[in-house]
């Protein structure tokens, strides 16, 4: 029983990272209507930037904030420079552009910082939380930060004018233009915010999986899976999906025989696909009912 509880908590803790990633994924999806495959690499690159600043002697919090800000600006720049020219290209072509971005970021990171793993500090420490052996303080910190981000984003999108404008630009770009919203810049903003959320996710998980250029692939995939499970139209659902995927992955790894690290992903995906069979738009997603 204690093992189950422990694995559950551990699952929630890793799930927090997938949830953060899923949040970034859904945010960008709502803004641009497709998935950004390079999201993980952007997060990885941001984490490396933070690491570099720490190496240069900056305190953790300065590096953290600077990385988030730089990521935001980077996201905006990438959208305006790289993706604006192909805005009207077919979706599959834009997909290939994402793949290209993935290659560029991954390869550059490897060249600048090489592929040896590095340690990344955590502001939360790694002591067991409350002395209990369920989760560590860092894991609790991950969960807390993810939920806090979700809360802030919710307030932003529901409660602010800019948030309303962004939602409008994503939902109906033509109508948004007709009320004077600069749709192009809303898109760029969406990218920037998504990059910033990704950076936070990256800096939270680096202490756990150790920093190296390929660290985010698995996280991104689980994040996607979580987002899809929760439903791509629902940020809250994405976060819930992320947590769920973390738990499923951990429990599967612990309690099903033959399941090594790689098979865990497959099992998680198979379970998610099974769920999608029953609810094709994700657990919390709303099927878009359009009149003919």
């Amino acid at each position: 029983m204690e093992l189950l509880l422990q694995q559950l908590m551990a699952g929630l803790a890793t799930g927090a990272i997938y949830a953060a990633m899923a949040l970034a994924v859904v945010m960008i999806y709502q803004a641009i209507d497709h998935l950004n495959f390079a999201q993980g690499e952007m997060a990885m690159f941001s984490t490396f930037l933070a690491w570099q600043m720490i190496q240069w002697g900056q305190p953790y919090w300065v590096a953290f904030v600077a990385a988030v800000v730089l990521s935001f600006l980077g996201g905006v720049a990438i959208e305006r420079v790289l993706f604006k020219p192909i805005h009207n290209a077919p979706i599959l072509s834009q997909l290939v552009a994402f793949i290209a971005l993935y290659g560029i970021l991954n390869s550059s990171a490897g060249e600048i910082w090489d592929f040896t793993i590095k340690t990344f500090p955590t502001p939360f420490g790694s002591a067991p939380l409350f002395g209990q052996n369920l989760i560590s303080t860092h894991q609790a910190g991950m969960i807390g930060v993810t939920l806090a981000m979700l809360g802030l984003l919710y307030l932003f999108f529901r409660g602010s004018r800019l948030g309303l404008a962004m939602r409008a630009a994503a939902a109906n770009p033509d109508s948004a233009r007709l009320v004077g919203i600069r749709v192009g810049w809303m898109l760029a903003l969406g990218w920037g915010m998504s990059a910033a959320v990704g950076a936070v996710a990256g800096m939270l998980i680096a202490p756990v999986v150790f920093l190296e250029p390929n660290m985010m692939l698995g996280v991104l995939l689980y994040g996607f899976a979580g987002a899809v499970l929760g439903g791509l139209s629902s940020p809250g659902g994405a976060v819930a999906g992320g947590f769920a995927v973390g738990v499923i992955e951990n429990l599967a790894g612990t309690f099903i025989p033959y399941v090594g690290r790689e098979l865990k992903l497959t099992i998680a995906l198979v379970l998610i696909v099974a769920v999608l069979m029953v609810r094709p738009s994700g657990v919390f997603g709303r099927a878009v009912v359009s009149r003919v």
Partner: protein
Amino acid sequence: MTVPPQETALATREAPRAAVLARLSPRHLAIGGAIIIALLLPLLTTSFVTFQLTLVMIYGLAILGLNLLTGFNGQFSLGHSAFYGIGAYTAAILMDQADLAYYWTLPCSGMLCFAVGFLFGLPALRLQGLYLALATFALATAMPQILKFHPLEPLTGGVQGIAILKPDPPPGVPLSADQWLYYFTLAVLLVMFACAANLVKSRTGRAIMAIRDHPLAAAAMGINTALYKTLTFGVSALYTGVAGALGAIAVQFVAPDSFTFLLSVSLLVGLVIGGVASIPGSLVGGLFVLFVPNIAESVSRGLAGAVYGVILLLVIYVMPSGAAGLARLLAAKFSSIRTLHIEGKSV
């Protein structure tokens, strides 16, 4: 628009010539020319280049499979590496353990992949767009795991995979093994491409494309969308599976980590670069996918991925609809120049 008298006279004089030319469209000439070049190439170049060209055709065939599903039918698949892998392993296992001749492995791989594709297509009916992408992605990640699965090792050879021998040309044929394999692949390619072209032009093809463009309208017109979608999944898997079998024979080796999600990504890149819903474009895609990563690596070992990414971006900027899209654009410009010329207007 009335045509002035002297232009009518010109038209009637040109009529007999035009009739013959009309049957031999530029398209036919291009295909004929390409086939002739293809037949001559192995005799003019080294063994290694012949081998590479064989791989180009194999990838082209695999991409055509993906094209049938994603390009013509609008079902997004990230899982075609799995079908390629199934085809490859089927061929390898049959040749290694059942001593089956290499040419019989192709129909076996094809039929098995058709069945798997069709069966996968059934639950896939419920999923759209990105959700379908995730399901196919699950298939792609599952494949290497299944191939490495401990209890299946006697069949699949586990992590080590299976090694097979390259087939020899039939007795009396004065070609090297590489050249023979090239011509064999070329023959299979031509047959399968021709079948695909026929399918696309037929009523079935139109139904398949109607489903892609407007599923609701297609269903309202009486098209059995479920049947066509699953059948297309099956055929698409068949094509990629046959390509996989040919790939196994060409490379003489199959191992689980050759058939990962990365292969699916390559196929997708090839599909886009060649041109979505373009049959000849699939070959261009195959060319790109085989050679460009090598080019990128030769530019810079450490930044190979970055160089590849930059090349991809530049290609997308220049031809957002792939090579086929560019060809269409140029053809339209060319024909509009010709039309203006015939009408006597200055260009």
